[in-house]
């Protein structure tokens, strides 16, 4: 087990270096003149240009620039945005909002997805099963860029149940509607997966054994059917957590949440290389760590899986 974790961590280092390199290359190697982009239409004086060029190592070869960047990253210095703000500060502002949003979305997706999937899986062919099937198809089919404004219009503007935008310091309540929108696709896929898994497991021999023991129907479902059905669903939850954090760009934009997604969007629009690379690097780490945790959790849930 320990050997497995160490091996995975070493793999993560390689993956991390690889992804940051690619993102760094994309952001830096192909930009025209970041200093001019920063200044906008105004001319940049030679003095300023020289200072900034040296500060950002702009006249060095690309690989050296990357080396400097990684050196800073490893010593905890994420650098500064082109506007001069430390990226560490930007992150500590943005991440809590995104983490809250993503966890809330995941919570709703898990709660509704698993509950509805369980009911649909136990009552296959029922009205509930068919209705949820149709609904999940609609939700999966609608892109979030359509879903988010509709939800905002209906529940925020018309019905007034939720605030339309979250604001600079979003409250948990303000995040509920964005979280539901963000988690909608996850809810649908999780529901479908749970339903399929439950439908398969209720017919399993060990469920028949459990019934033959004379256990209550509730116990058979909770302890035997659901427990075994959740193994594939857990994997999905892990993958979704990463996607929810990274994929909140549209949702954060529509609901005006100052999170990672909106900062990332801003960074891309202003060609702010350090900002984009910094955020993407952290996202990569989040992805890698959640995946590792899911794999370890998998072994806990299914004793047949062992990591040597």
């Amino acid at each position, binding site marked *: 087990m320990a050997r497995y974790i160490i091996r995975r961590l070493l793999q993560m280092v390689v993956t991390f270096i690889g992804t940051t390199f690619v993102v760094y290359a994309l952001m830096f190697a192909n930009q025209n003149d970041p200093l001019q982009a920063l200044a906008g239409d105004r001319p940049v004086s030679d003095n300023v240009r020289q200072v900034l060029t040296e500060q950002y190592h702009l006249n060095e070869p690309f690989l050296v620039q990357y080396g400097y960047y990684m050196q800073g990253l490893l010593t905890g210095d994420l650098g500064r945005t082109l506007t001069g703000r430390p990226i560490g500060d930007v992150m500590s502002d943005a991440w809590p909002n995104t983490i809250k949003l993503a966890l809330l979305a995941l919570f709703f997706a898990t709660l509704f997805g698993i509950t509805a999937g369980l009911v649909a899986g136990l009552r296959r062919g029922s009205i509930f099963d068919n209705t949820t099937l149709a609904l999940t198809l609609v939700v999966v089919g609608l892109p979030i860029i359509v879903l988010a404004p509709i939800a905002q219009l209906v529940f925020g503007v018309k019905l007034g149940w939720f605030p339309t935008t979250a604001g600079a310091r979003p409250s948990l309540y303000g995040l509920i509607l964005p979280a539901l929108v963000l988690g909608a696709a996850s809810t649908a896929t999780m529901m479908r997966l749970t339903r399929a898994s439950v439908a398969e497991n209720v017919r399993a021999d060990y469920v028949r054994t459990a019934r033959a023991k004379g256990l209550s129907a509730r116990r058979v479902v909770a302890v*035997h059917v659901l427990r075994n059905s959740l193994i594939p669903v857990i994997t999905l939850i892990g993958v979704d957590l990463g996607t929810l954090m990274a994929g909140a760009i549209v949702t954060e934009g529509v609901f005006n949440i100052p999170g990672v997604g909106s900062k990332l969007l801003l960074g891309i629009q202003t060609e702010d290389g350090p900002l984009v690379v910094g955020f993407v690097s952290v996202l990569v780490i989040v992805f890698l760590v959640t995946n590792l945790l899911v794999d370890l959790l998998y072994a806990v849930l299914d004793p047949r899986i062992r990591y040597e």
Partner: protein
Amino acid sequence: MTYQYPSHGQGQGYGQGSGQGQSYGHGYPDSPTAPVVAGWNDDRTGWDTPTAAWSTPPTRARVERPRSGEHLLDVRDLWIEFATRDGVARVVNGVSFHVDPGETLAILGESGSGKSVTAQAVLGILDTPPAVVRSGQALFSGEDLLTMTPERRRQVRGQEIAMVFQDALSALNPVYPVGWQITEALRSRRGVSKAEARRRAVEMMDLVQIPAAAQRIDDYPHQFSGGMRQRVMIAMALAMRPKVLIADEPTTALDVTVQAQIMDLLATLRAELEMALILITHDLGVVADVADRITVMYAGRVVEHADVHTLYGAPAHPYTRGLLASVPRLERRGQGLHSISGTPPNPVAIPAGCAFHPRCPYAQQMCRMTEPTLLRIGRLDRASACHFPPEALDARHA
């Protein structure tokens, strides 16, 4: 279809507790070379008893039969159908059997003969729908399992009547330790504490002869060999000390040497715990040493019913004769294996008349027209559903 119950007042019937051993093979020669099966073997060597155990009755627990004439488990005229896309599949058609404490009843039949469905209906784990129990009774200590409330039925299930399933690897939950699974019912139904449950789990695993039980209690099913897994299944079924144990093809997924061990274990436990054992199998070799009585099923009907020695020594029904002739035997090496021609009927379209007639070498016009009833033969608790008495079948090939 009717089933004639033998009266229990006769001294010659099985299970009277008088003259153990004398009642077996009553009226039939015990000589291993006696040609008692006619018709299937052209060389007229007939069926003989291939193992010594078949000619000497095994020691059996003496259990007094209930005085009221009631059986511990008495299934009467059970009819079960399945609604399928192709129509109604009549899977169990008027099946009756009974079993008493300390006794082993084998239900023998090919796949699809309705034996497992019958057992699942008795236990109440049949999925309804698609299955429908049309009529019949399953009396357990005089109480009808089929009409009792679901809650009362659940009390009986596992506690009074338990079941061992065929493939222990899939029948055990892969994500829980075996000790946990063995005592799950004790903990959730009888409120046994965790520590006590662990102690009981070790005790049960010892009972089914799993070596180093205390060390293996936290192992998972996939960490056991096939035979050990089946022992875990048995331990689990016995944890509540049931009065009836139904073993549904308990050895089918195992290799031959392990099969014998598991059958021995079941026989020993049945005697020790004075249980009634219902052994569902398609394997004649498996039941020979263990069963007291055998009920042979074909196309959802009981076609023959006899004590084990009579059945092996002098099978009455052509189907039973065919089954016995199909058992490979050493002294017939190189002669090719006998098989019953044709396939079992589709339960959606069971042939009219006798369901076995398309495959029966003795079939006559009347077999195609009328369905034979299960009739008693002789004085023993023995019956066959054939228009022709065994003597007539023998004579046809004499």
